[in-house]
């Protein structure tokens, strides 16, 4: 019995020693690999190389995550557009709808365009009223505040002057500027002009509506204002009128 125990002890010693050696060897290999990996990740060029080599694997890993996010975003946008279209289709048998349809027929705007426009519609981010000659800001309306409207008004006037002088023909005026999904629509009057910063889909009908609003505003409120002194009193007066006219309009 004692002899058996001795043999067993010897065997256990041999086996464990070999295990220990194996583990130590493996550990060293893993540590060396980790060092190598750390070195590669800290070196931008090597890291870029690793990414380049593993492009397919990265796409496999990230693709489904990004895909799900995009799918979710598109689904929510479609739901929003659908909801807006449904709202409009409910109004299809109303007198208001018939009136709009007749108006579109006269204006030559398709109902399809109009429906898309109302569903995805452009929203008003900022509105400036700017004196034509000096480029001074007379008033502004902004659902979302932006910095330094005075400077923006000046730069818009300078760009307008630049474009009109460089490319314009006699009596032609700049009517819009586009940047990414933003559109700046300019409505020119004799002594001042309106600059509307819009985001989203802006079609002929929306432009037409804005023009009607500016014509109305100029005719009834702003046409007679004195621009001799562009001061806070004038600004306040103009801004009250702008807020009255636009506070619940062109928001999407």
């Amino acid at each position: 019995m004692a002899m058996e125990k001795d043999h067993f002890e010897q065997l256990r010693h041999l086996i464990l020693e070999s295990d220990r050696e194996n583990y130590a060897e493996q550990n060293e290999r893993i540590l060396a690999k980790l060092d190598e990996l750390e070195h590669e990740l800290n070196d931008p060029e090597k890291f870029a190389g690793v990414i380049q080599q593993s492009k397919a694997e990265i796409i496999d890993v990230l693709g489904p995550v990004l895909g799900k996010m995009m799918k979710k975003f598109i689904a929510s946008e479609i739901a929003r557009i659908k909801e807006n279209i449904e709202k409009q289709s409910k109004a299809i048998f109303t007198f208001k709808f018939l009136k709009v349809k007749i108006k579109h027929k006269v204006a030559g705007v398709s109902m399809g365009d109009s429906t898309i426009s109302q569903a995805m519609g452009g929203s008003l981010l900022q509105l400036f009223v700017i004196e034509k000659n000096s480029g001074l800001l007379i008033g502004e309306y902004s659902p979302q505040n932006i910095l330094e409207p005075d400077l923006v008004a000046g730069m818009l006037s300078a760009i307008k002057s630049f474009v009109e002088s460089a490319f314009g023909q006699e009596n032609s005026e700049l009517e819009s500027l586009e940047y990414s999904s933003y559109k700046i629509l300019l409505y020119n009057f004799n002594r001042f002009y309106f600059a509307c910063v819009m985001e989203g889909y802006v079609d002929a009908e929306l432009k037409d509506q804005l023009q009607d609003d500016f014509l109305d505003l100029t005719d009834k409120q702003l046409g007679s204002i004195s621009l001799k002194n562009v001061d806070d009193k004038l600004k306040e007066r103009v801004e009250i009128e702008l807020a009255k006219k636009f506070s619940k309009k062109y928001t999407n």
Partner: protein
Amino acid sequence: MKSVNKKIVLLGNEGVGKTSLVKRYVNSIFSDEYLTTIGIKISKKTVQIGEIEVNLMLWDIAGDMMNKTLYNNYLQGAHGIFLIADAIRPETYESIIIEKENHLSIDFKNTFTYVIINKSDLISEPQADYLKAFKYDYLTSAKSGDNVEFAFQKMAEEILKASTS
């Protein structure tokens, strides 16, 4: 507090220090890129005159624009014009005086127009003599800041006085 907005245009040949004067003076400024793209840079400075806050919109026009038709558009509606020359380049003085006599005193005769000789810090004794021949309103240095604030303040006061009288 009451506030008014006024437009001031800065004119002068390239390198006379218009942009440095503005940089020395203003609160907020657009990037220099605009100056090279459309020949203009607009900045804003608010000054206090008595009970009134005056917002000065400064239109800094690139030196090489003076020969182009577009530059006339930038002058429209200005309440004040600063003509700027370099103290050690007499030809820049001659150039602004020609501009003043042939153009501004005719088309913009109701706009306050003042001549600034800039870079006063570079004037040495012999140069001080030739300055005697120049007719100017302010001698400034954008580098040291001498008279810069004063020139703009005076311009704002003149404009305000005229608009309230």
